[in-house]
């Protein structure tokens, strides 16, 4: 009697895929650095070679991390429609290279440009997702503290910033739950009888929602502030801070090697 409805797979972020793998065991800082380097590479050289190389890295990582196909969220139909509908116009723009199909000549210059932009965005999202799906949130703040250590010379309070980051990551699920509840509360309301200027109703609505969200967040913040005071301020943030090892050296070398190869190929 049970009929399972086809359900959309939601976007899951900041939660590692259950299990462990060489990628899961990498130091979080290595992964952050790698993503940063790849972002810089693609911003400087958004070419097909670079896109291909990064895509290969993403696929290699996904294979090593044993990320199943199901982790990829369902792309909503309206987004697909929007992309296809948006790209239809590109076919009319023309420009070399030309393809001759039957009696028609279509210029693919514009199509390729749009395809490349989309590919850059997709590959970048993929790299981000690899970190998100293999890293426990608790490892991120200590890793940032270590990575930011050189900035201490400039007088930047790195440890304090890392503690803030750790708290933000801790409160993130709580706040998104509260946000979800707020939206639900809004959905439960009947159609609103509003007085006042029509054009400003939506802004009143938004201000109301924002105020409720901020009030809840402020209350949470002062309670957590009390808890911090009760512990005598900030200090350690991790019980067993991880350290980079041989594995990390190999992974980072691989990323740098691929990056350098792409740069050399593009420049020479």
């Amino acid at each position, binding site marked *: 009697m049970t009929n399972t409805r086809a359900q959309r797979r939601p976007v899951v972020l900041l939660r590692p895929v259950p299990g462990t793998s060489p990628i899961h065991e990498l130091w979080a800082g290595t992964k952050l650095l790698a993503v940063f380097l790849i972002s810089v590479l693609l911003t400087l050289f958004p070419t097909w070679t670079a896109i291909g190389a990064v895509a290969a890295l993403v696929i290699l990582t996904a294979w090593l991390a044993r990320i199943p196909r199901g982790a990829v969220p369902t792309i909503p139909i309206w987004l697909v429609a929007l992309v296809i509908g948006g790209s239809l116009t590109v076919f009319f723009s023309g420009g070399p290279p030309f393809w001759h199909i039957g009696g028609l000549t279509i210029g693919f210059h514009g199509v390729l440009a749009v395809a490349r932009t989309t590919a850059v965005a997709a590959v*970048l999202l993929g790299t981000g997702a690899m970190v998100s799906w293999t890293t426990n949130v608790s490892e991120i703040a200590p890793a940032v503290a270590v990575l930011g250590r050189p900035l201490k010379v400039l007088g930047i309070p790195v440890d304090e910033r890392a503690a803030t980051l750790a708290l933000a990551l801790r409160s993130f699920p709580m706040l*998104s739950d509260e946000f979800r509840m707020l939206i639900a509360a809004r959905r439960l309301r009947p159609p609103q009888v509003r007085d006042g200027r029509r054009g400003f109703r939506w802004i009143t609505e938004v201000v109301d929602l924002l105020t409720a969200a901020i009030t809840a967040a402020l209350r949470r913040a002062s309670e957590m502030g009390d808890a911090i005071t009760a512990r005598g301020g900030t200090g350690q943030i991790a*019980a067993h801070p991880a350290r980079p090892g041989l594995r990390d050296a190999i992974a980072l070398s691989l990323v740098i090697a691929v990056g350098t190869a792409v740069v050399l190929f593009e420049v020479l």
Partner: protein
Amino acid sequence: MSALTAAMVIVGITLPIFGAVQLLGAVPMGLLGYRYRVRVLLAAAVAGGVIAFLLAGLGGFIAMCQCVYIGGLTGVVRRRGHGMPLLTVLGVICSAIIAAMAVGALTLLHRMRTLLFDALRASLEGLFKMIGNIPHLEAVGVNATNAIDFAMRNWMWFIGGIVFTFVLLNTMFGWWVLSRVIRRLAVIPDVHQLDPPAVAGAVGPVPARLHDVRFRYPRSESDALAPLSMNIEVGEHVAITGPNGSGKSTLMRILAGREPTSGQIERPGSVGLGAIGGTAIVMQHPESQVLGTKVADDVVWGLPADHEVDIDGLLREVGLEGMGEHSTSSLSGGELQRLAVASALAREPALLVADEITSMVDPQGRQDLLGVISRLTAQHRMSLVHITHFQSEAAAADRGVALRAVNGKTARTAIQTVPVPTTTAALPHAESPVVLEFDSVGHEYASGTPWAKTALRDVSLTVHEGDGVLIHGGNGSGKSTFAWIAAGLTKPTTGQCLLDGKPVSDQVGAVAISFQAARLQLLRSRVDYEIASAAGFSRRDTDRVVRALASVGLDADLAKRPIDQLSGGQMRRVVLAGLLARSPRALILDEPLAGLDAESQAGLLRLLIDLRERGRLTVVVISHDFDGMQDLCPRTVHLQSGVLLPESVGSGSRS
């Protein structure tokens, strides 16, 4: 806060249709800039930037920077008391700088620029060529192509101009929204209880001797703590009991280092709040106590860098052995509180103050927690002050101190201003029409992904009109999912939930639900606006507002009160007033008594019982607690790991 902003930014990026939402991420940042110093804003910017980078890459990071810029500028201008003119001047200057930076970046990144311009030109040209094929519009195509060519040749000015205008408009919009939000937030009381200790020096909180200690809050007309004399000796377990308003929490603050208004406290050294060998405090709210994302991280959170602790030993002592690697968000309330005790013990405190630590924990969790607490003084050389409003919890202590209510304080807690008459019960009959029907409902979150989690399995339940059903279950039993499905907010993955024979998810709003966090359900600024909005009538309809307030035993004087000046119990009643004014088919209450003191709990229960018996309202209560629920809910069903256990009927004769 920055998590809130990041949440909004991510919403803004993933849902391009709601582009406006991303702009609103600047508002929380603006509030930070308005209320605190620039350093706080910078800290939030770093945290938010890293999270945004993790979630959405460089684009997310840039969007976050934009939120910080707009929020920072508007917030700081507002804090300094300046207005629109200065903001406009600064906004123009900053927007020009940002536009120049954007142009500069595109000049350097010439490959990216070529690609983006190619893509942009292709889309636009294609669009205009299509338009050009429409009869009578041929000229548009040609002219547009020329215009695009012109724009691309002078891209610096075009891109710079667009960025400038966009940033400036965003700044103005941010200012506008922020001003409205700040006006609303002005009445929010600051609820923080502890202040960092001012004096340093040798730490020695016990033995403490209090002589006629009295406390009155600034701008208050009466004392919060009546003159109190007591001693706290080394190694003793003292229980402090007293009704609401007797100054229990005030005493906690004094023990934490706040100076009393009069009287003296003698201690051998300073309080040393949170210091090694000083005073440690465990408070009421389980979720906000715990600061680490992993259990072991939380134990060491905030300790000096060179201080080593036996994490496993501490976790064993509080019964969380082997859970060091667990995520703190998966713990139940009781486990969280025991973890907070372990973190307090990591500081080897000489004095531990436990302030109402069991009030938001289920009965099983309460037993475990009290077990841990009662062993502490025997195993450590420390004094324990246990503040509680349950007389029974004081039994394990060496000594009890009962605080008496301070005169004039009792009026504050009295919520009941209009008596709710009690009438005899109309017994629910089996023949009453079926209201809610769960037909083998199952629900799985994130189905098809590696994170799939089954919350409910094959749940079937029928609720008749006028019924009172208690869905009882512990942490992770799926009871919240049950509530969301029953209200139609979540569509179950298998089976269906019917209201009057039709799927409830098609009639969202017909079943009223009161969430545990009442504040999140109060969306408007004032009580009357809120009730009118929740019930769907005009805010000028005062009669209906007064009637709605009376139906939940609240006085009409409350109608014009700002929401944030209400007590917890009053908030819950205002939510109920709004929900009931719509005459819902059924009312779902998620943990209706959590976070309320004993008096408000009893009052709310009386009201609900009356509504059900007299108004034949169908009530479904979701709770981890049985206490006092028997009269409201004659039927109890247990939910365990998403499965419904056979039901039992309340102890009364009603069946």
